[in-house]
């Protein structure tokens, strides 16, 4: 309780500088979002002050002077009504276009992004770099390089939030979501879970370390784990016997996986889908739902036998098959 009293005192006596008003802005996304935020704040302040001053003026000017005083009749005005319908509508239209364009830009990762994988589980963030290193509740990234995070959850819905970068996205079980950012300054920034996920939700936090590219390369090399995700995936591929059916060429009992990543694939359901992380994941946990025509529905589900981390490693392996085996095959 003494802490409380001290705080009350300090919040009263301390200079305004003690109260932070702005989070650090440390990504290429932050600037644009902040600009929109300030314009919105300006609009809010303008209309709030406008309405407050008009009301205050009326309150004083038209205060009731005697108990029997009456007001003159009200005259309605279509012109006024239209004015305060149309002006807010136009402001809203401008805001919508601006905010949406910015959002779409912020949602689309540049083609040449570093990819890092994130798994949320109650109550920790598990991060895996393709080169091999893993970390918990920490994320090391290089400055000035676009980074794309592909995220999933092992249990409930989480949300990966880095305030300094102004990026946030729910992390869902059974699906991949992604965010991207390009850090603009080195330093240490908060990482929060922003979707309530149970008892220790508020402790599902961590730090993002933004490093110079050289420091980052050093850090990557310095980890104990030197086996890349694709290599780990390859190990799993043989461990689960995937290669028995998925052989290269068309003679296997399952379709060849070489070079399929990123290509559209026609499915037995009639739909055509691009083979991405989500589709490969689907093929592992619920194979029949994405069966390819010409192959029988014989693949068992691996749900329950394989965790999200291993799925990601297998995906990394399938992706790595892209160039190699295709050239071998040809």
């Amino acid at each position, binding site marked *: 309780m003494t802490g409380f009293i001290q705080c009350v005192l300090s919040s009263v006596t301390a200079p305004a500088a003690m109260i932070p008003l702005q989070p650090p802005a440390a990504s290429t996304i932050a600037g644009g979002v902040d600009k929109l935020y300030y314009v919105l704040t300006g609009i809010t302040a303008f209309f709030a002050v406008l309405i407050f001053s008009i009301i205050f003026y009326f309150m004083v000017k038209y205060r009731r002077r005697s108990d029997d005083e009456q007001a003159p009749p009200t005259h309605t005005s279509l012109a006024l009504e239209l004015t305060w319908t149309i002006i807010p509508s136009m402001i809203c239209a401008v805001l919508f276009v601006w905010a949406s364009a910015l959002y779409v830009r912020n949602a689309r990762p540049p083609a040449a992004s570093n990819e890092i994988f994130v798994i949320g589980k109650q109550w920790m963030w598990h991060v895996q770099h393709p080169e091999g290193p893993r970390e918990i509740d920490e994320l090391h990234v290089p400055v000035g390089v676009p980074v794309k995070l592909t995220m999933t959850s092992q249990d409930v819905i989480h949300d990966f939030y880095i305030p300094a970068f102004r990026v946030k996205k729910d992390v869902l079980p059974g699906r991949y979501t992604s965010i991207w950012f390009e850090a603009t300054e080195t330093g240490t920034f908060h990482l929060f879970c922003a979707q309530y996920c149970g008892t220790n939700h508020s402790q599902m936090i961590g730090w993002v370390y933004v490093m110079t590219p050289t420091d980052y390369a050093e850090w990557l090399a310095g980890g104990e784990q030197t086996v890349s995700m694709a290599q780990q995936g390859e190990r799993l591929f043989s461990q689960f016997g995937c290669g028995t059916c998925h052989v290269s060429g068309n003679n296997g009992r399952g379709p060849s996986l070489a070079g399929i990543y990123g290509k559209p694939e026609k499915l*037995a*359901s009639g739909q055509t889908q691009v083979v991405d992380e989500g589709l490969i994941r689907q093929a592992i946990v*619920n194979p*029949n*739902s994405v069966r390819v025509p010409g192959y029988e*529905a014989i693949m068992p*589900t691996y749900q329950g036998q394989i965790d999200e981390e291993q799925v990601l490693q297998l995906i990394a392996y399938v992706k790595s098959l892209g160039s190699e085996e295709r050239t071998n095959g040809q």
Partner: protein
Amino acid sequence: MSELAAHSAHPPGFAHQFETVAQQREAGKLGMWVFLVTEILFFGGMFTAYTVYRSLHLQAFITGSHLLEVKFGATNTAVLIVSSLTMAMAIRSAQTGKRKGQTIWWLILTMLLGATFLFLKFRFEWYHDYVDGIVPGVSWSYHGPYAPGAELFMCFYFFMTGLHALHMIVGIGILTVLTVMTARNKFSPQYYAPLEISGLYWHFVDIVWIFLFPLLYLIGGRYPGS
């Protein structure tokens, strides 16, 4: 209450808050229609979920659908349609002031048809599903292709038909009350609003089934190779 004396010769069932019998009647009907609108959205939540999953897992839903037997669905549809006719006839006979015995017989017939529906549903469908192990969460032993999606389909099958059956049971309860009221001469060609608005409810339950039948039993067709 004194001013109520001014309205002389009120028929039975007239409530004090109304000014005229017509007002009361219209209020009752509007009330039931508004209630049915809430029912549309109540079932609608499930229909929305069903539509979403059906579009995401069409093949699995077809697989699940083929676990059901069309003959029971079709028979039950017919049973409900007959019951709608008898319900309409019950109201008509009250409306035209026929002998009350006639109204009672139409009502009893409607209830019997409702009971037939439930009997078919529970005895020949749900019970067999239980024995066959295609009841998610209770007895599930189906492991064919698309098993997870088919399980999702069966969830919807049981929730939707279960909710519908619950409405049928409530409907039969209401009909029982109406039968007793008719027997006690509560209704006349001037006052039969309870019959009328209960009829709306009964027809609504019929309509729900009219949609459930094709959505649950006939997805993706029943032709060979479907």
